[in-house]
């Protein structure tokens, strides 16, 4: 700690910070633009000027930029000094000279850092009387709008896009007061994190294009804390609604998880909530070949109740890795654990539970995204992170900056001094080894990459582990290439202070997952505290594995054997989980197929009864992310009449059936009841209730409003539909209210519905919610990590290293090629995504293509699960010989991959 003096009063601050950060943490309102807690200082905007005094005698002082000055012990500054205030107001005056001054019609208005800072400095009168400079805007693709006239040249966008996220197709062009921030030509921003420009830009240059078709003033959004539903990382979000449609997603700061940033899938994938293909009413299909007809909720319950009551032992429940823990648990309770299937194939369920087992067994603990950023040596085994866990890829980019920090520290450069840090580190990246079947641009900073078939990747892992600890089993017949690579990797990981091994389910290979564990364990055993990070396929994959249940094959055979005939499917499209033939057979054999889901899909097309489930935006629930952290998401807006949480439907079904097996269930009225039952039923969930405050939680007796205190139209927004003002809908499940009334201060972190503080209307009001700017939130509740392996010391290595991959003469091993845009079932249905989703493609090694006489762009025929497909071929030398990678988009699923298939060139007419 350091003692500093601000306007003649002493304060204690963290001496590793700069004065701006320190002052903001102390609660001072010091304006700034170019500094960002995650991007550091560069001293460009000159907005944060304060007066610094050399000592007590110095009365004159001199202006310094707070963001560029260390908070060293004994520093004396004044924020209130008239000269400093004048200077800060002048900086705004300069910025405003060219600014359009169209706040009333600006998309950013009311949520604009420039507005806030302008008011803060007191600049109010316009003296600049000349013409303003104007720019031509660009079409930057489906996600981001561009309005360059609003730019104040703070350089945050380029620093985020290029320096932080590694993007290349965006830059600052030109000079003087004419710097242009954009692409070299119109076109879609390629970087997967482009959406963060919306929040990082302090004015309205970049805005969320998906908001525009249903634009609403940002203070008119009803918002709730949520958790991203589109991959296993569980990034925290704030989701906003108006007039019954979900309108945008913002980042919700979580110090351990996503920090300040989201990926574009998570930010722009929400559109499925508003989809035309939503299931909005209960429906039944009187005849299997016919159409569905809407049916009244009570009627369908009356119809289904007796069915479930009559033959409870004839029901099979199929859960889902994209449904909440509570909904899955409700289903499990309804049908009984013996009749509960995870809705995943043996193979896929197995992969998830191996990961769970590894994380439980230890000794390597699972890494949070924050831990990943801090890692100083990383080995990735089998994952193409940018596509399977995008936010993690961004974190790995930051981890690569850790080792060069040694140089930076040695030179005495403070870590917040971003420009100097980057100059000193100069294009040096810390160790990052990527071993994966194929490459993405993200490998640009890799120390070494190794592309091989899954079995060979696993073998590499085994050999690395063996290099680290001779007691760890190695692989047979190791070739010199793998042998020496493994030595280099082992040497680097062994010397690191915080090594990390990342792997996951992308290769669909147990051995890959196990080999990653062996590496981390070997490190732990030899005294290096390694962490492990596994990427799973979906938002609740790990939670579902914790819950446990039968595989889909088992469910199929129960029905096939006639041991059950009624199927209740929870939020799951079986055609994504199994090959089409088994799916068809199963759905056909079952006499009653009841599906609870949000969107129509191939499975719902075969259902006898459809019940409308709430999406993440219309329900509350808990998801367990890839590190084992249980996090609560909250309902954003009251659902349409018949839509409700899946667990409530299941509860209703239980009630309707007068279910004798589970008398408790019928008494479930709130989410807390389900959470309590779950935490009592299954030991791993015993702390589940700690993930978020219970419904009864109040701040000074009040609920926390979802609407801002500036929310407009409360009494009039429904006027065209209703004469009277409807009563606010009650929320029985959470301490949040569908209202603008309630507690206005800061709630515990899981309940933050939006960031606002007096004078701070933009997302940067977040500063006021952090105990220390850039650090943890005040009243932080980071969710609960349900598994911890600290303290465990014993290591039992996996022993089954696979044999070397053997290419076949006439077949290729088809591997899944996941896509950030397109693979995730729900976000792929968001209309904004359409333009970004690639067409089905098969990626092949050029030499393999040559033997087949393929040219790029030609189509091939391949056979998967007895079905033939035709897809265009793309050539890429990174793809291992003998394998090919197939995009998992549109109808293609990874359920049947990897699989061997012949490739036959399609003769085009």
């Amino acid at each position: 700690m350091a003692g500093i003096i601000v306007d003649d009063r002493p304060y204690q601050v963290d001496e590793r910070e700069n004065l701006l950060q320190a002052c903001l943490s102390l609660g001072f309102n010091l304006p700034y633009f170019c500094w960002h807690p995650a991007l550091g200082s560069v001293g460009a905007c000159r907005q944060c000027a304060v007066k610094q005094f050399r000592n007590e005698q110095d009365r004159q002082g001199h202006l310094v930029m707070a963001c560029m000055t260390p908070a060293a012990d004994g520093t004396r500054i004044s924020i209130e000094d008239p000269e400093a205030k004048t200077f800060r107001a002048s900086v705004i005056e300069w910025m405003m000279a060219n600014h359009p001054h169209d706040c009333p019609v600006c998309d950013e208005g009311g949520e604009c850092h420039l507005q806030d800072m302008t008011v803060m400095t007191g600049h109010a009168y316009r003296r600049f009387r000349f013409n303003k400079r104007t720019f031509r805007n660009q079409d930057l693709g489906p996600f981001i709008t561009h309005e360059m006239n609003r730019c104040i040249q703070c350089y945050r966008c380029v620093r985020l896009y290029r320096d932080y996220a590694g993007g290349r197709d965006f830059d600052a062009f030109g000079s003087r007061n004419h710097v242009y921030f954009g692409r070299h030509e119109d076109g879609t921003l390629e970087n997967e994190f482009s959406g963060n420009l919306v929040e990082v830009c302090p004015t309205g240059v970049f805005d969320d294009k998906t908001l525009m078709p249903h634009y609403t003033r940002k203070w008119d959004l009803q918002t709730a804390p949520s958790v991203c539903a589109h991959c296993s990382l569980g990034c925290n979000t704030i989701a906003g609604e108006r007039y019954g449609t979900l309108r945008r997603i913002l980042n919700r700061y979580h110090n351990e998880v996503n920090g300040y940033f989201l990926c574009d899938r998570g930010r722009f994938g929400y559109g499925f909530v508003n989809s035309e293909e939503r299931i909005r009413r209960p429906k039944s299909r009187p005849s299997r070949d016919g159409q569905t007809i809407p049916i009244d909720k009570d009627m369908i319950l009356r119809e289904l109740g007796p069915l479930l009551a009559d033959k409870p032992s004839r029901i099979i429940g199929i859960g889902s890795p994209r449904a909440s823990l509570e909904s899955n648990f409700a289903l499990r309770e309804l049908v009984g654990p013996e009749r509960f299937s995870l809705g995943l194939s043996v193979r896929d369920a197995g992969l998830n539970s191996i990961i769970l087992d590894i994380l439980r067994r230890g000794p390597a603990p699972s890494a949070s995204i924050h831990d990943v950023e801090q890692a100083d040596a990383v080995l990735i085994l089998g994952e193409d992170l940018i596509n399977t866990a995008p936010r993690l890829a961004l974190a790995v980019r930051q981890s690569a900056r850790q080792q060069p920090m040694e140089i930076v520290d040695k030179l005495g450069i403070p870590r917040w001094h971003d420009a100097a840090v980057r100059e000193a580190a100069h294009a040096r990246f810390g160790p990052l080894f990527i071993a994966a079947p194929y490459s993405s641009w993200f490998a640009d900073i890799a120390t070494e990459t190794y592309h091989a078939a899954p079995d060979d990747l696993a073998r590499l892992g085994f050999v690395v582990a063996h290099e680290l600890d001779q007691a760890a089993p190695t692989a047979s017949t190791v070739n010199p290439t793998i042998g020496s690579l493994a030595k280099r990797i082992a040497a680097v990981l062994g010397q690191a202070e915080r090594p990390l091994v990342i792997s996951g389910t992308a290769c669909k290979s147990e051995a890959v997952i196990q080999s990653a564990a062996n590496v981390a364990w070997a490190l732990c055993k030899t005294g290096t505290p390694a962490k492990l990070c596994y990427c799973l396929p979906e938002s609740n994959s790990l939670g579902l594995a914790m819950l446990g249940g039968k595989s889909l094959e088992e469910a199929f055979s129960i029905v096939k054997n006639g041991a059950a005939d009624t199927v209740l499917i929870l939020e799951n499209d079986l055609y994504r989980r199994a090959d089409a033939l088994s799916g068809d057979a199963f759905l056909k054999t079952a006499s009653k197929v009841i599906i609870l889901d949000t969107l129509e899909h191939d499975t719902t097309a075969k259902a006898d009864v459809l019940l409308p489930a709430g999406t993440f935006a219309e329900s509350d629930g808990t998801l367990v992310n890839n590190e084992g952290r249980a996090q609560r998401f909250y309902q954003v807006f009251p659902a349409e009449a018949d839509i409700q949480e899946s667990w409530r439907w299941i509860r209703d079904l239980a009630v309707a059936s007068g279910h004798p097996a589970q008398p408790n269930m019928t008494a479930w009225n709130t989410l807390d009841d389900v959470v309590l039952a779950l935490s009592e039923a299954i030991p791993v969930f015993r702390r589940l209730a700690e993930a978020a405050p219970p419904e009864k939680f109040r701040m000074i007796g009040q609920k926390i409003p979802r609407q801002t205190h500036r929310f407009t139209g409360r009494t009039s927004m429904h006027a065209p539909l209703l004469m009277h003002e409807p009563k606010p809908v009650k929320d029985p499940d959470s301490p949040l209210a569908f209202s603008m009334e309630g507690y206005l201060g800061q709630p515990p972190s899981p309940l933050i519905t939006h960031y606002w503080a007096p004078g701070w209307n933009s997302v940067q009001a977040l500063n006021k919610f952090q105990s220390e700017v850039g650090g943890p939130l005040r009243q932080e509740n980071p969710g609960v990590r349900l598994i911890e392996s600290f303290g465990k010391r014993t290591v039992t290595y996996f022993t089954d290293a696979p044999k070397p991959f053997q290419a076949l003469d006439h077949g290729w091993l088809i591997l899944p090629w996941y896509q950030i845009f397109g693979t995730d079932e729900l976000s792929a249905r968001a209309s904004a995504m359409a333009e970004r989703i690639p067409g089905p493609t098969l990626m092949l090694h050029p030499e393999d293509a040559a033997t087949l006489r393929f040219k790029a762009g030609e189509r091939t025929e391949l056979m998967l699960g007895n079905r033939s497909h035709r897809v265009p071929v793309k050539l890429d030398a990174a793809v291992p010989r003998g394998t090919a990678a197939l995009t998992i988009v549109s109808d293609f699923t990874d359920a049947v991959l990897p699989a061997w298939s012949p490739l036959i060139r399609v003769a085009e007419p």
Partner: protein
Amino acid sequence: MERPLTHNIKPRAEPLWLAEYEKAGGYESVRKALRTMTPEEVQKLVTESTLRGRGGAGFPTGKKWSFVPMGADAPRPKYLVVNADEMEPGTFKDRLLLEGDPHQMIESMIVSAYAIQADVGYIFLRMEYGIAAARLRKAIKEARAKGYLGRNLLGSDFSFEIYLHTSAGRYICGEETALLNALEGKRAIPRAKPPFPQVVGLWGKPTIVQNVETLCNIPHIITHGVEWYRRLSRGKDGGTKIYGVSGNVKRPGAWELPMGTSIRELLEEHAGGMKDGFAFRGLLPGGASTAMLVEEHLDLPMDFESIPQGGSRMGTGTMIVLDDHTCPVGFAQNLEHFFAQESCGWCTPCWEGLSWTERILQSLEDGQGRMDEIDVLTMHTKLLAPGRTFCALAPGAMDPLQSLLKYCRADFERHIHEKRCPWRDEPNGADGARTWPVSSSMIVPTR
């Protein structure tokens, strides 16, 4: 009078190529330093010589070098970068040295690199200096062929290589850290200091950036010694200085003279005084970014210690003279136009402040000036002070404006009262010469 820096230079003649250059004593300092001196001894000599940087800031060269990490564990490679960007309006002294004696530049670089144990040298050359580029290229080639560049120079274990880089043509590229960014292929914006380039410079490595003229002093210091060198000067700082005079004087030009030669001597003896019919109003002593001096300052010696007594800076030591036929407001407008255009666009006070001042000055010239905007100009001269802007460009831009407002305030006000530029509509020169505005080729380098 000795002219060590320019004694090889003959106006409008080819420079001395290697053989003649060697015959004239060239590369003697390389032999002496590499064979008989340690790097530390060369550094010590330079410190004792009291040589100060000729690029504008006048920082003591020996002191600058002392920050370079030396010894076996110093980061490598280390770099020596010659700042030959010379885009300061009114300044053409480095051009003289580069075109006139390219081998002197190479020799200077070798001995200086030896002193700081630099491995690689770059010459960062102003875009428009095509002749200098060609001559330097030839000189580098000759030197390399003769073994003055490359591995193990003169059989020592010192190796050194030189590369010529021609700039894309921005004034800010002359600011030493922006220069380094430009050399790295990045946007030419300055870097924050600390860390200083001596420690974290080009590609993150220890780097010395030095002005052409500064470096050209080094060989002579080594060959002739400190005593001799200090005696060349009339003032406290050692050596000679290449002074320049431009404007409506009889003989504009550049001369190598003892450091500390007075302004009056420069103006009246060497430049031959004002052209007939032109009266002296003031001068910017060291390039466009220095404050104007007037009659009362003419007896100040031109050196780093004395010029500040007049409220200005020695800068590059090449002065621009303002006469009575030239509108001071137009003069200011022209200068601010240059600076506003050359702002790198990094820090707000500069990128918008300079543009605003330029537009106010233009509106004065157009007869649309307003009294309250004189205050806006004054405000800028106060706000754009060192430390408040990111680099010295903006404060440098304010120096002439601030002094013009001080010495020519009445002229500014006349523009407002008369709603026109008095110089534009009423040529008042005896010979009718209309010199408004200051000819653009003089202030703004032609492209």
